[in-house]
């Protein structure tokens, strides 16, 4: 990983060319030194491996997120440019859309996942978290990924959406395909897409109105058809967005929080002393670990970004995780501090495409960490954690832990 050749001048500021591959297994194993290298190389860099621009500092990542007219999403938020290539699945009506098309679909999902709706599901989500932790207390030693980070969202989210009981085992594999597919045509992406057919078929089927139980988030989306806010053809694709983005992300977010609290016992003790820190402890884990590591945008015109000239039709890779640890923005960025003011982190994005399910994620994280802090005195890592590799998501495959009851 060395800078290849001399920096090429493309305007008032030269854009350094790096031969970093941010979709390589070695990078995934330990991305932090490379993140630092990317940030220090300049405000905008060029990655020769995939012929894309990259931004890794907070200011530029935030600037790209805040200007959707210049840095669009409708040409795909992965490496593939939908103007030149056929997407592997029909594009998302919200993630891979620009205003004005985006505005309408966004409003529908915001309504279905609003603070009011969160108030209605809160008690149910909290009770399920308590039940899960009680079950884990009986075992004492368990895998915190399979039995906590995955088991908890799986115990509430599919029901909240209104899914049938059959076939739910497709949900996590489906999401993993979606997030791998944002990456380049490497082995991870190719393999994921090659085995995606049954997962895609399951998801397409569940998105239909008749298959969604009344009262759930899915039925709520379809109800917007009756009000004329979206068409009957759009509704299933919006339900698909919840299935793609609503489960694996929270699994990785909760996994990240437990991993942090297990590694930093002083922070765990702080949380034990003040349960009201649970929500912020989760938020700080999202900043610190950034379960969603990267997203692309495509330029709609020639643009200057922090002095660098970028032409029209270029892919720009935003390193959300690197921005979340940029020392230009964060004090002691590499420490996990549950009392930190996390305001402004880009772990959920920012601007018009900011994660529409953020309230669900925060609710799940908060009630789970509260349940843990109320019942458990100690969480100890009791075996080698194993990483799960994905082109977009960062998380663990397994995390053996032992807990001591309070």
């Amino acid at each position, binding site marked *: 990983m060395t800078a290849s050749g001399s920096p090429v001048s493309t305007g008032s500021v030269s854009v350094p060319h790096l031969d970093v591959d941010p979709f390589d297994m070695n990078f995934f194993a330990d991305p932090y030194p490379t993140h630092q290298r990317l940030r220090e190389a300049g405000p905008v860099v060029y990655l020769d491996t995939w012929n894309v621009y990259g931004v890794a500092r907070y200011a530029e990542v935030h600037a790209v997120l805040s200007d959707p007219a210049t840095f669009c999403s409708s040409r795909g938020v992965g490496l593939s440019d939908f103007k030149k290539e056929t997407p592997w699945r029909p594009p998302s009506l919200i993630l891979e859309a620009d205003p004005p098309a985006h505005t309408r679909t966004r409003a529908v999902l915001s309504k279905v996942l*609003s*603070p*009011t*709706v969160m108030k209605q599901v809160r008690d149910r989500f909290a009770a399920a978290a308590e039940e899960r932790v009680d079950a884990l207390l009986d075992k004492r030693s368990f895998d915190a990924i399979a039995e906590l980070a995955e088991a908890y969202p799986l115990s509430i989210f599919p029901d909240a959406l209104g899914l049938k009981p059959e076939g739910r085992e497709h949900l996590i594999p489906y999401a993993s395909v979606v997030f791998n597919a944002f990456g380049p045509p490497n082995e991870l992406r190719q393999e994921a897409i090659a085995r995606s057919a049954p997962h895609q078929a399951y998801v397409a089927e569940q998105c239909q109105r008749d298959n969604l139980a009344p009262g759930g988030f899915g039925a709520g989306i379809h109800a917007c058809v009756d009000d004329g806010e979206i068409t009957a053809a759009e509704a299933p694709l919006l339900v698909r967005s919840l299935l793609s983005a609503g489960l694996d992300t929270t699994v990785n977010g909760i996994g990240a929080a437990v991993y942090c609290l297990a590694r930093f016992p002083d922070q765990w003790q702080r949380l034990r002393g003040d349960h009201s820190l649970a929500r912020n402890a989760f938020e700080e884990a999202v900043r610190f670990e950034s379960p969603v590591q990267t997203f692309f945008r495509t330029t709609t015109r020639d643009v200057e970004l922090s002095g660098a000239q970028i032409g029209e039709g270029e892919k720009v890779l935003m390193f959300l995780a690197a921005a979340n640890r940029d020392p230009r923005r964060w004090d002691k960025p590499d420490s996990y501090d549950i009392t930190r003011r996390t305001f402004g982190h880009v772990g959920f994005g*920012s601007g018009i495409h*900011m994660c529409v399910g*953020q309230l669900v994620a925060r609710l799940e994280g908060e009630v789970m960490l509260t349940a843990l802090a109320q019942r458990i005195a100690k969480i100890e890592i009791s075996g080698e954690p194993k990483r799960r590799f994905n082109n977009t998501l960062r998380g663990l495959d397994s995390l053996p832990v032992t807990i001591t009851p309070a």
Partner: protein
Amino acid sequence: MPAITFIHPDGKSERVEISGGESAMEAATRHGLDGILAECGGNAMCATCHVYIDDAWLARLPDMADDEDALLDGTAAERRPTSRLSCQIKITPALDGLVVKLPERQV
């Protein structure tokens, strides 16, 4: 420079100066004020920047949009006739001196 005053639930008040074009939420978070969470960063999605506007000022604020109105139904503390989302209130010179009360809780 316009300034606005936040009154905490315990009665303590904090005066915050506003730089050009900031919203009340942005000024509050830039000053590290407790009591405004602003989890969505001002994108009108979270309702954790809820404030109660002082009666004398209420009529002088710009009208609220439908999305703000809908979000206010989801605030953690009770919604009152004086409730607004501070991220949707741009502070213009005309709002110099605005007084807002912070709710008991944001989540």
